[in-house]
């Protein structure tokens, strides 16, 4: 099989992994002329976008799509009839370098089907990274999939070469994972995430002590760890999903939890709901995830036993505001940062600018556009120096209707 055909098969096999981030790692470059590549620590670079709206930042491939496991939702499950292929280590290394030199990519995202054993598979994945770093002095970004239960020494080596490591939790609850992925064990996944967390913490501590001790700290995945949950393959509610996310963020200090709307796959199992992927639901989950991480919302404020699903027609912050109208209208001149962050249409940047501006002058409704705040969304909830919503508006049963025809917000930066 030629390399181009392998590339087709093994990229096709990798595309259900949503993560393509290349940000948040340490600063590296090749100004010394002895290597290739650099990182963009602040903002990752998306070198292209596919018509599915997803960023293409990394060469995202599997080393092989042969797999011992038979996870129902997975295109690569053992019982599927998709064509199989396996890259040699050198083929992946060469493709990465060739693509990188042409500025197609930020680096490599390498995953693999489980072949022979966890350790054997991890060893293969690590070998590619080792070759890139040590033989080719590649300084671009590397994301490696970590195989649960792989030997500690292999994980340490993976962290030495990779910028990011990830293990997918796959399903929001254990029951679903058991039903759909009988060979996977949620506790093995969590234990490995726990091991990664300890290693990440140790590396951070060692880094802090580096100056004092003058001993170079061993490197371990400077861009941290992430995971992915499939949405819509099982019957889990958004409440279950977000509660699991909050648990994972807190327990393993994840950089990101990715939500991947379950999508029809080639040669799919009949045991799964084969329909268009729930893209809007996925989008709302990302918004809710953002509210939890950057806007001070607790999971229970976004979803609860009474409303376990996120609304699809309005975003979760607006839905929250509509449920808590007694907290509005909010006087922008006096409100605290925490309160401002809860106003529909206010982003973190807009809030910072409002706080800086209001010290010097009053804010009028004409200013909203200059603050890049959507007028129609915000005005019913705020008091400005020249604006106060009609008292009846907030009590009106039709307030929610005003927002429903709104066009969907566009994707996030992955």
């Amino acid at each position: 099989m030629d390399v181009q055909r392998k590339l087709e098969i093994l990229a096709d096999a990798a595309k259900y992994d949503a993560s393509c981030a290349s940000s948040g790692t340490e600063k590296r470059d090749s100004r010394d002329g002895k290597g290739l590549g650099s990182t963009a620590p602040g903002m990752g670079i998306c070198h292209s976008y596919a018509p599915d709206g997803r960023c293409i930042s990394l060469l995202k491939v599997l080393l092989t799509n042969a797999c011992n496991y038979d996870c129902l939702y997975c295109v690569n499950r053992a019982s599927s009839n998709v064509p199989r292929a396996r890259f040699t280590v050198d083929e992946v290394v060469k493709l990465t370098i060739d693509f990188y030199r042409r500025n197609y990519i930020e680096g490599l995202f390498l995953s693999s089907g489980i072949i022979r054993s966890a350790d054997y598979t991890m060893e293969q994945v690590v070998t590619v990274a080792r070759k890139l770093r040590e033989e080719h002095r590649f300084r671009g970004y590397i994301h490696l999939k970590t195989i649960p239960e792989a030997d500690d020494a292999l994980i340490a080596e993976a962290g030495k070469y990779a910028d990011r490591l990830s293990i997918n939790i796959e399903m929001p609850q254990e029951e679903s994972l058991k039903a759909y992925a009988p060979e996977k064990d949620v506790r093995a996944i969590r234990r490995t995430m726990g091991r990664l967390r300890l290693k990440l913490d140790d590396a951070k501590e060692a880094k802090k002590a580096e100056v004092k001790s003058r001993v170079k700290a061993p490197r371990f995945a400077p861009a941290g760890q992430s995971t992915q949950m499939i949405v819509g393959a099982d019957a889990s509610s958004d409440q279950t999903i977000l509660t699991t996310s909050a648990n994972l963020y807190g327990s393993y200090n994840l950089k990101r939890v990715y939500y991947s709307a379950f999508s029809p796959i080639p040669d799919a199992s009949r045991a799964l709901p084969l329909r268009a992927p729930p893209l809007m639901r996925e989008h709302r989950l990302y918004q809710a995830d953002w509210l939890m991480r950057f806007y001070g919302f607790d999971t229970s404020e976004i979803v609860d036993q009474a409303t376990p699903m996120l609304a699809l027609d309005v975003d979760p912050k607006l839905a929250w505001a509509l449920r808590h109208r007694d907290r509005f209208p909010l006087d922008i001149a006096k409100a605290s940062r925490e309160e401002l962050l809860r106003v529909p249409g206010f982003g973190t940047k807009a809030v910072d600018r409002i706080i800086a501006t209001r010290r010097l002058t009053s804010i009028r409704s004409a200013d909203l556009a200059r603050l890049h705040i959507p007028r129609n969304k915000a005005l019913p909830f705020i008091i400005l120096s020249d604006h106060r919503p009609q008292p009846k508006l907030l009590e009106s049963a039709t307030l929610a209707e005003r927002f429903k025809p709104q066009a969907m917000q566009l994707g996030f930066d992955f």
Partner: protein
Amino acid sequence: MHIITLGSETDFEGWRKAARALALQGIAPRDVTWNVRGTDPELFDSRSDPLPENSQGGAFNVPAQFVEMAQTAILHRAPERFALLYRLLWRLRINHDLLSLATDPDVARIRDMAKAVRRDEHKMHAFVRFREIGRERNSHFVAWFEPDHHIVELAAPFFMRRFADMEWSILTPDLCAHWDGHALSFTSGVSRDEAPSEDRLEEFWRSYYTSIFNPARLKVKAMRAEMPKKYWRNLPEASLIKPLIASAARVSHSMIAAEATAPNKPQRREQPMARKSSSSDNLATLREEAADCRACPLWKDATQTVFGEGPAHAPIMLVGEQPGDKEDLAGKPFVGPAGQMLDRALKEAGIDRAKVYVTNAVKHFKFVPRGKIRLHQKPNTPEIRACRSWYERELAALNPTLVVAMGATAAQSVFGKITPIQKNRGRIVDLDDGRKALVTVHPSYLLRLPDADAKAREYEHFVADLKIAAKLLGASARAA
């Protein structure tokens, strides 16, 4: 009227020098016209007052943020940027806080201009596509790019840092950047025909682009927001966009409608290791069994069961409350801050930690997540009760001389009822089964004390309690 002619479209130093002199002379923004050499020749004919010499050498301060923003915004293609920047400078001398006024039209405009330049730079970093001329060692990589703003000089160092080991050129209509392995240089703009039109890897890249696209989730608007059409003509993969969109619905429907195929014969799997079954409890089998414990709901949020640890015939069994954050991650008891405190105290009391068995009354970590951390929650009575059978079986398997209960939860488990610490600590108590017990505080209690004196006092008290255990142990060792 003053007419200032700058050296180039990106002549920040020229602008800065002129603006400083104008401001020092008190020349209002409306009396100044800005242009760039060679772009507006007819303006040379109009009468321009001479630029005042900056004779008094005066200077004034502007916020660093302004200089930074001006350096970026000046690269914008809008001709009015020089005048706008001078107006802002003029206004900044009166109102030093002007830039914090996000609602001011001039501030909003300059901010948007700087943002547009940054975005253009970012897109150039992303969308430049090198094509190789020649092969391997003697190759030269050449790209063609059409920026919106005057960003070639701004964006070029990024490519130098990234591709320092190869020779490359980026050609644009405005300006071309070159790297020869040693230095960056710039030459004037060229036409598109000067750039190579293909590369041997593009076929692979297009294959990758096609394969990584998921036709079941078409989001064309999202793609176009980040990769506007204006860039497509210089992206080798962009010719695929239209056909991929056109066939997406068909491909994704056929995936849904396809008949299920006969499952592929599963490949040979490694058999999971068979569990060794054992009739009698020993610590190893207990540990294995406890890993699957679901006697209470705590297993659900925790990483793993944290079972006791220590030699199989340890004479002392130390019982704590429950694993904490670190213990939950590591799967070992007392490895976090409380564990370090315990280690220190044990050493001081003359007890070797390696020779004692350490466990917890509750074997899963109970917590609530708060952002990036987990807040410890006290286990309740049903949870303590549910976990008690593990303690009992551990106790039976280990058969220690002395059990040390650290803290209220441990005491509740060891005595089978709520047992106040302060009232019972510091003396050996007989248990119903003839074993001896000692009650003391939990080391994490010491960590929580805010007052350093109290902390030192309580620590001494804790060590004193442990010395009682050491003494008893010494006595029983001699007796044996």
